[in-house]
């Protein structure tokens, strides 16, 4: 058996892997966009003066954060249909990963919100700004700037977590690589290529986050 990397074979399987990586990228970008918005919602609700709301959201966030993503997507795809809620593997996977990471980003946002000096809230109150305007105009711009690197961290983490979705039959990059490998019994090339894709995508994401950080920087 030839143990050296077969470039010819690698080029042959490349298109199939690229098609699958499109799913990986799509799931991650859509999932991350949802996680960014949902996480902010969770963070703000956790600070609500209405105790039952704050406690319920807090409990939900802690629960989802403390259980594996795998179990959560299993529940979404295999358990929910028995209660009448069915969705495609792709939907279940995207929703599962989005909500899971929303709970992580909500903690990041909470840290950012806690870091905004009290005087800013007081100045907004002294100017009679509405709660909406206080958040949108004063607090969030100051809360989000310092936590962009941490949020970007979760983007990269999410990319690398997409292989978990192969457990619910989503044919993303890793699953495709495994399929190709088990057809031809040559795993070296597909796994190496998959690894390289993840590396390139992660580095590119990190660069993107860095550029966003720099653009948001204040003079």
């Amino acid at each position, binding site marked *: 058996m030839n143990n050296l990397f077969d470039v010819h074979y690698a080029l042959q399987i490349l298109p199939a892997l690229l098609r699958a990586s499109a799913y990986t990228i799509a799931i991650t970008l859509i999932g991350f966009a949802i996680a960014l918005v949902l996480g902010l919602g969770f963070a703000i609700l956790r600070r609500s003066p209405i105790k039952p709301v704050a406690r319920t959201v807090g409990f939900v966030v802690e629960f989802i954060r403390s259980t594996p993503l795998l179990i959560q997507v299993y529940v979404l795809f295999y358990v929910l249909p028995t209660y009448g809620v069915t969705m495609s593997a792709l939907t279940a996977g995207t929703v599962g990963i989005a909500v899971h990471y929303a709970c992580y980003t909500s903690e990041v946002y909470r840290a950012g919100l806690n870091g905004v000096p009290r*005087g800013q809230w*007081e100045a907004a109150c002294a*100017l009679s*700004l509405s709660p909406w305007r206080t958040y949108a105009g004063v607090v969030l711009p100051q809360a989000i700037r310092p936590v962009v690197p941490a949020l970007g961290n979760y983007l990269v983490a999410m990319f690398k977590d997409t292989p978990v979705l192969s457990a619910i039959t989503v044919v993303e990059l890793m699953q495709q690589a495994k399929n190709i490998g088990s057809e031809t019994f040559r795993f070296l090339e597909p796994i190496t290529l998959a690894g390289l894709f993840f590396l390139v995508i992660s580095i590119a994401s990190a660069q993107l986050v860095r550029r966003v950080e720099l653009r948001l920087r204040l003079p």
Partner: protein
Amino acid sequence: MKREPMTVLSDATALGAAAPQPMVRFAGVTKRYGALTVLDALDLDVAPNEKVAIIGPSGSGKSTLLRVLMTLDPLSGGAIEVDGEPLTHMRKNGALVPASAAHLRRVRSKIGMVFQSFNLFPHMTALANTIEAPMHVLGLSRSEATERARELLSLVGLDDKCDHYPSQLSGGQQQRVAIARALAMRPKVMLFDEVTSALDPELCGEVLNVIRRLGAEHNLTMLMVTHQMGFAREFADRVCFFSQGKIIEQGPPQRFFTAPEHERTRQFLRAVHEAV
């Protein structure tokens, strides 16, 4: 903000006794933090256009007085009236009920506050800081708000710094922007909470000059917590000495600084003299 249960005002008519009506009235105002009483059944009337300097040792409740007026902290007891209207309550069908958010915002917008640590919005330029409230609270258009903001920044001597960020301004300049920002809401009452305490002596002067100009050129009721005795003496209509949550002594600055009646006041003024 958590609403704590308050003593209900007896009868609205009982308050509006002597004319002219005070611009700000503190009636039996009490503020407690747990077991600590910071303001102790305080009564104070401030007439329209009156400039009141509030002095006293730290922890005496001076800043807390301004803070409860600005609704930054809830009252533990008593009531506050601004421009004839109750602040934290409103009249509904002849009875007094806790104020709705809209009522609170409306009455509160008659008051402006300038803080010791400036509290400018760091992600906005001086101009943007000043147009924020008029645009979003008073509903002015961007051009109207900008015109008003430029006027005010010019009034405080910063028309060339409109497009600078707070981090690019000195302490004195930042405080002057803060004053312009508070004035943009056209308040009737201005609160100054130790506004020069964080500034070095040279920069103090430029801020105090702005306050002097405001007092001379505009109809503003002012409450100033300050350690600047010289300024209080020359500018204020009335000086109040606070200690342990109560007003120990008050009076026109001429009499107050030359012939204080209470021993505590004398003690405090002696210490101030020695420090200079």
